[in-house]
């Protein structure tokens, strides 16, 4: 094969000559042998973790054999208390999922139709003729299994296109396939370009050493290529629809959960299905650099087309028409039971077969046919290494629990159960735990950051699981396993943590804690020595500031990070981790997590901030925990808050800035105006009401601009002063003493050359111009100008002015303005008024007219503006 590759490489470099043609021809011939010889090797069942670890003696042979016992579903027939069988797909809808030809091929020779399949050939003992008959009967029975696919509910949060499985885009599918994690287990396409990842020193070392040296240095596993889980011929097997549905919800069709749910949206599943169905199988042996491999599949053929079925009647969901030959169907049903199919596959009410329990098997007898090719009616195609491992595991099972590790519930047994589940589910394809597993050497290139930023391996590879049970709370782990979207903490990675709904995985949540020695003590206990008697609220502030010193340099907080920082968000740490782990980890990160990028802020257990909490490391860490637990009460760490403000805070510098919004104390028609001078106000445009004034920072516009639920906002600065409360403009007859509010209609505003707005209102028979600016006294200066409404008809919009006729007895010319409001208004000078809230209003007008003290109102005149100065 090496010869072939070299030849090809050379041919690729040469010009288009006759020699080259000859070489191509030769190369083509070699390629064929190359392919066929490789497929010949894939007769044996493929169990990912056995191939990776068991075959190379990197796990104990017993364990390796036990993995085969479960993954080959041996214990589905030969029951064992300890090892549960993987089991096969449920077949309720098989006739809608696979093509008849594929099904026949598969039943004829499972390992040929689907290389690496874990399903044995249960018909191998039959003569060709009776085998044919059995297949025909089985296919007839299976053709009646036409259950609907699970309903897929569309909604505002869940886009589902009509016949979405026909609308996949293969190019997008190729990207998803290579980016979301499919290639953690399955073979990548050699054509797919990955980001260049600089070879690490260890990579260079691995390249230089020969196998013996690698083995000696314990690097054999790291250097070895991780074989891919074969996909078989998906185009022959599935329709676009059934493949899409499978990818969308694999656990529904394969309850074993070995193929995890990649949290695909329906359209993403369709994209990947389109890609997988169009691509020819890649060679199982992908070269390290991907370039030297002969490829036999075409590419660039897009199926991103609309492809409705050619005959009306909707999609051809039914891959196999139900057989009407009831006798044949019944025959197949019987076979399905007697052949033991029902031991692994659910397909309605079918009786499963009983065989000898695992512990009672006699491996020396001829009945050990499963382990020996051609010896009996059931053929697995096991190779010698697999058969040997199975032998060992069965023999150990027969002896019974003699060693400590096999005694149920013992520490070792729990530990082994954890490892077994991780092997069965192939968690090791992505994660390392205790030096086992991790993303294979040649697959790492597919694990990238979303933005392409280089964050090292910690920023692109799934996190290691060593000691994870000591760190993460079982409640959190369960949420992770069931795919709770809030558990996605690394949105910067292209890879997705899939959903693992299988009960064995859920059980890990508790088992991991046991194995890793979790200390589930509550914070009050863990930090008892340091925080006893201390109020959470006081140390929370300290914790916030401590976090604001170091953590935020690498971590995000409430979705906000420092510029260029990409890191796990710390917001919900107390939901996720045990306080005890938090304490230990912060004290000495390197000891808890090897090779972490997390630096120690407490070298030798000493705080770098001696002035805080007496420099006591534990107290400081406790304060950080306090803050994390109650962060909503303390606000964001300073720098994070400042960073967020950069994007959303309106800070007037050259000219006034405005924001229309919903605002507390102002209402739903609020217009806030901020000035570079640092004095700001907001009016309620529906009432021509100067509602509030304040100083320092103006407003944070984030929620108004971008938050769905449009909350009422507050001023950002300080010294918020309520000014006018209710209606401000009245008709008034001094004889009646009761002013009648005049409805106001907001007409808009005009900006002058320095962008100061002048608000305009219609009020009865008048127009009012209202201009408010900062005053030199650090207050506000307001000018009210009254104009006769020349074009107005005094009639508002819609029903807006039901009682616009309150002009009493004949004083219609007069419009009155309420200067100030309150229970205890005083009048320190003739022109100034003060209320209990600390507001002082000065009235500037040459022709000072009486103020009706009971109402604090003065008349307005078209002949002269009214100027008011507000101070507080």
């Amino acid at each position, binding site marked *: 094969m090496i010869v072939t590759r070299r030849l090809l490489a050379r041919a690729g470099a040469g010009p*288009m000559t006759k020699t*080259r*043609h000859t070489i*191509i*021809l030769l*190369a*083509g011939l070699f390629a*064929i042998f190359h*392919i*066929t010889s490789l*497929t*010949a090797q894939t007769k044996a069942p493929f169990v990912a973790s056995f191939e990776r670890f068991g075959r190379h003696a990197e796990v104990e042979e017993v364990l390796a054999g036990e993995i085969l016992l479960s993954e080959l579903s041996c214990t589905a027939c030969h029951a064992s208390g300890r090892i549960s069988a993987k089991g096969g797909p449920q077949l309720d809808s098989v006739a809608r999922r696979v*093509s008849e030809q594929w099904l026949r*091929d598969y039943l004829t020779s499972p390992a*040929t139709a689907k290389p690496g399949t874990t399903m044995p050939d249960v018909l191998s003992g039959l003569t060709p003729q009776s085998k044919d008959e059995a297949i025909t009967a089985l296919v007839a029975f299976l053709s009646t299994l036409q259950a609907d696919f699970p309903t897929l509910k*569309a909604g*505002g949060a869940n*886009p*589902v*296109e*009509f016949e979405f499985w026909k609308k996949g885009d293969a190019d997008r599918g190729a990207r998803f396939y290579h980016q979301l994690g499919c290639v953690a287990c399955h073979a990548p396409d050699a054509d797919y370009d990955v980001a260049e990842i600089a070879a690490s020193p260890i990579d260079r070392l691995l390249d230089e050493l020969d196998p013996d040296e690698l083995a000696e240095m314990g690097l054999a596993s790291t250097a070895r290529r991780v074989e891919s889980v074969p996909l078989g*011929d998906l185009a*022959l097997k599935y329709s*676009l629809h059934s493949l899409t549905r499978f990818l969308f919800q694999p656990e529904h069709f394969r309850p074993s959960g070995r193929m995890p749910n990649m949290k695909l949206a329906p359209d993403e599943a369709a994209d990947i299905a389109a890609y997988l169905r169009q691509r*020819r*199988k890649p060679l199982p042996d992908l070269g390290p650099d991907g370039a030297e491999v*002969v*490829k*036999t599949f*075409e*590419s660039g053929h897009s199926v991103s*087309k*609309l*492809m*409705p079925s*050619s*005959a*009306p009647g*909707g999609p*051809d969901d039914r*891959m196999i028409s139900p057989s009407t030959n009831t006798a044949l169907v019944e025959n197949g049903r019987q076979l399905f039971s007697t052949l033991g199919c029902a031991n692994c596959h659910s397909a309605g009410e079918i009786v499963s077969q009983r065989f000898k329990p695992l512990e009672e098997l006699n491996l020396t007898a001829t009945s050990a046919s499963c382990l020996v090719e051609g010896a009996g009616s059931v053929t697995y195609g096991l190779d010698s290494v697999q058969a040997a491992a199975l032998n060992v595991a069965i023999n150990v099972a027969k002896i019974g629990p003699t060693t400590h590790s096999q005694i149920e519930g013992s520490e070792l047994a729990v530990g082994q159960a954890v490892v077994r589940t991780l092997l069965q589910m192939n968690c090791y394809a992505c994660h390392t735990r205790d030096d086992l597993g991790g993303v294979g050497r040649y697959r790492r290139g597919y694990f990238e950051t979303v933005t392409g930023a280089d964050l090292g391996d910690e920023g692109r590879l799934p996190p290691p699981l060593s000691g994870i049970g000591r760190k993460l709370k079982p409640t959190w782990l369960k949420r992770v396993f069931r795919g709770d979207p809030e558990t996605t903490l690394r949105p910067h990675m292209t890879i997705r943590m899939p959903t693992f709904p299988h009960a064995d995985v859920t059980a890990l949540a508790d088992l991991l804690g046991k194995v890793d020695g979790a200390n589930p003590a509550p914070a009050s206990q863990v930090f008892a020595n340091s925080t006893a008697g201390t109020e959470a609220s006081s140390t929370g502030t300290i914790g916030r500031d401590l976090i604001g010193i170091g953590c935020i340099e690498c971590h995000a907080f409430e*979705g906000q990070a420092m510029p260029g920082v990409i890191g796990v968000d710390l917001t919900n740490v107390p939901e996720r981790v045990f306080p005890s782990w938090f304490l230990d980890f912060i004290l000495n990160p390197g000891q808890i997590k090897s090779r972490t990028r997390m630096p120690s802020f407490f070298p030798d257990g000493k705080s770098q901030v001696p002035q805080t909490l007496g420099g006591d490391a534990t107290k400081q860490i406790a304060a950080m925990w306090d803050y994390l637990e109650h962060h909503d009460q303390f606000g964001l760490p300073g720098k994070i808050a400042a960073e967020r403000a950069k994007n959303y805070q309106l800070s007037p510098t050259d000219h006034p800035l*405005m924001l*229309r*919004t919903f605002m507390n104390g102002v209402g*739903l*028609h609020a217009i806030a105006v901020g000035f570079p001078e640092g004095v700001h106000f907001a009016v309620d445009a529906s009432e021509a009401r100067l509602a509030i004034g304040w100083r320092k920072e103006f407003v944070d516009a984030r929620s108004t*601009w*971008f*938050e*769905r639920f449009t909350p*009422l906002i507050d001023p950002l600065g300080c010294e918020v002063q309520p000014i006018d409360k209710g209606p401000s403009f009245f008709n008034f007859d001094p004889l009646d003493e009761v002013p009648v509010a005049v409805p106001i209609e*907001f007409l*808009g505003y*005009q*900006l002058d050359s320095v962008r100061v707005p002048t608000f305009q209102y219609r009020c009865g028979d008048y127009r009012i111009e209202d201009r408010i600016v900062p005053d030199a006294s650090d207050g506000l200066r307001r000018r009210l100008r009254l104009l006769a409404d020349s074009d107005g008809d005094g009639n508002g*919009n*819609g029903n*807006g002015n*039901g009682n616009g006729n309150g002009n009493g007895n004949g004083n219609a010319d007069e419009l009155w303005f309420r200067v100030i409001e309150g229970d205890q208004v005083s009048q320190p000078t003739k022109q100034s008024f003060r209320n209990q809230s600390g507001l002082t209003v000065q009235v500037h007008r040459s022709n000072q007219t009486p103020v009706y003290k009971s109402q604090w109102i003065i008349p307005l005149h078209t002949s002269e503006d009214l100027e008011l100065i507000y101070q507080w």
Partner: protein
Amino acid sequence: MVNTLRKIGAEFQNWRKLPACVFWIASWKRTPHITGEKRSRHYCQTALWFGLAVATAMVHITIGMDTSLAEELPVNDARSNGSSHDRRSDVGDEADYYRIVSIATPQTATDSRDPNWKPAEDGIPLEVSGIAILDDRRVAVSIRKGEVWILDHVYDEVPDRVTFHQFASALHEPLGLLKWNNALVTVQRTEMTRMVDIDGDEVADLYETLASGWGLSGNYHEYAYGPQADRDGNLWLTLNIGMGFQGDQRSRCVSDPILKVSQPLWRGWAMKRESDGHLRPICAGMRSPSGIGANAEGDLFYTDQQGNWVATNSLHHLREGVFYHHPESLASMTQPGSTIEGITSIPDGLPYPDALKQFTAMRPPAVWFPYKKAGQSATDILLDQSDGKFGPFAGQLFIGEFTQAAMNRVFLEKVDGEYQGACFPFRRGFASAVLRMAQGTDGSLFVGMTNRGWSSLGTSSYGLQRLVWTGKLPFEILEMRAKPDGFELQFTRPVDPNAASNPASYRLNSYTYLYQSTYGSDEIQTRELSIDRAVVAEDGLSVRFYTSGLRRYFVHELDASGVLDVDGQPLLHPYAFYTLNAIPKIESELAAP
């Protein structure tokens, strides 16, 4: 080199097809354009092909690996098993006829429903909520953040020199933009506003309130959309129903004492600002009327979105005094100025035709958009006024689709004096939720997108794209007209008479919905109609098909997958959904709109 090998591989898959092989070998002689280099390569490939075939045979004989070889190199005919769709991959796709040009489709890091949603780091958060065409170089867009921007060079084939100029700011979630009397007009949450540049610096100085006075409680769902001008120069707006009131929001509602419904004033209504400045309530019963638009005759329509009381998305003719479906709007029925009166009870949970009988004030939509099949949330309405510059659909309506980031198409006709008609899928694959469309001076459509707060297909959370007709005529159902005993289909290209006259080329279903207070409705009372015969017109451009069992008020869903054009091509979109509110009594020869 690699390509050549790949090609060998591709050809090699046909190894069993001997006749094809012979043809292939012979083809270079019969193909005059294959010359020189190409011919030599062709020759070499031919030789290679033979080589490979021989080698394969050898492999078969010597190793006997037939099955494993077949599995490496699957055979084409096996592949088509159970998937007749594959046959249609030569139909071409929508992009062959209408291509999308991306003017701005930035990537955002947060999910569209994230409470901490953030726009892309650089640039303007172009969550386009309104588009006004200014001239043949510029458009103005309003964005949800509350600004209006003028974009220059937006018609460029490669829009890489687009400039952005801020025209207005400090608006409260404007959801529409109209060029009107040399100014721009928008509708904010609380008012309709005219923005005028007085001093000539291309920045608005005057923000004039043209209309206000409708109620709001502060509830997030109280969106206000518009304006849309009618033929008399009035400006229309539509008002969402509030949803899930909290705190003191209820206190800002009005109520109907009999129906016991409560909403802020005029919520769920369309209102019209007349030229004298009055804002008048016109018609009621809307849920989420995010699109208003006129047809070629100048009649106005609005779209509504599936939810409580709204079975699926719908298109309605705006008329004074009409009630559509959402009864909470009737909270304002007894308010001064109301155009509706006397409704005292609301049926709940009835099939739609029965509900219409019992609830006589209710008017059915002109078009239902069956859920998923024709979108999940209808938005803007755009009339193709390009006279053919945008393809064969002049005078028809395009309807924006939010969740699926797509566009549907509507054909309307009048039967018994009322509008009804059909919708068709038109174009999918936009970068985000389609909220606004506007037709440029060259006939192309500007498409404004934003999905924040909800979800959509696509790659972006917001942006601006342009949909351009490639000049290629798609094979589509142009029109679907109701007849007393069937339908008449008009096509964009002549059909193959054999296929089109075969009743088996069609499948017709009908169904209706429940009128109910709960969210949406499934299709109910579904029944398949048999096609008795189909008659192709002499020019091949139309087909009249006959059926029995048309049901009034039911959606009639047509799947015309079997219809082919004269070149044997199937329809680009074989589905059509006709809302049959009235069955014509007589066959009219004139297809008057």
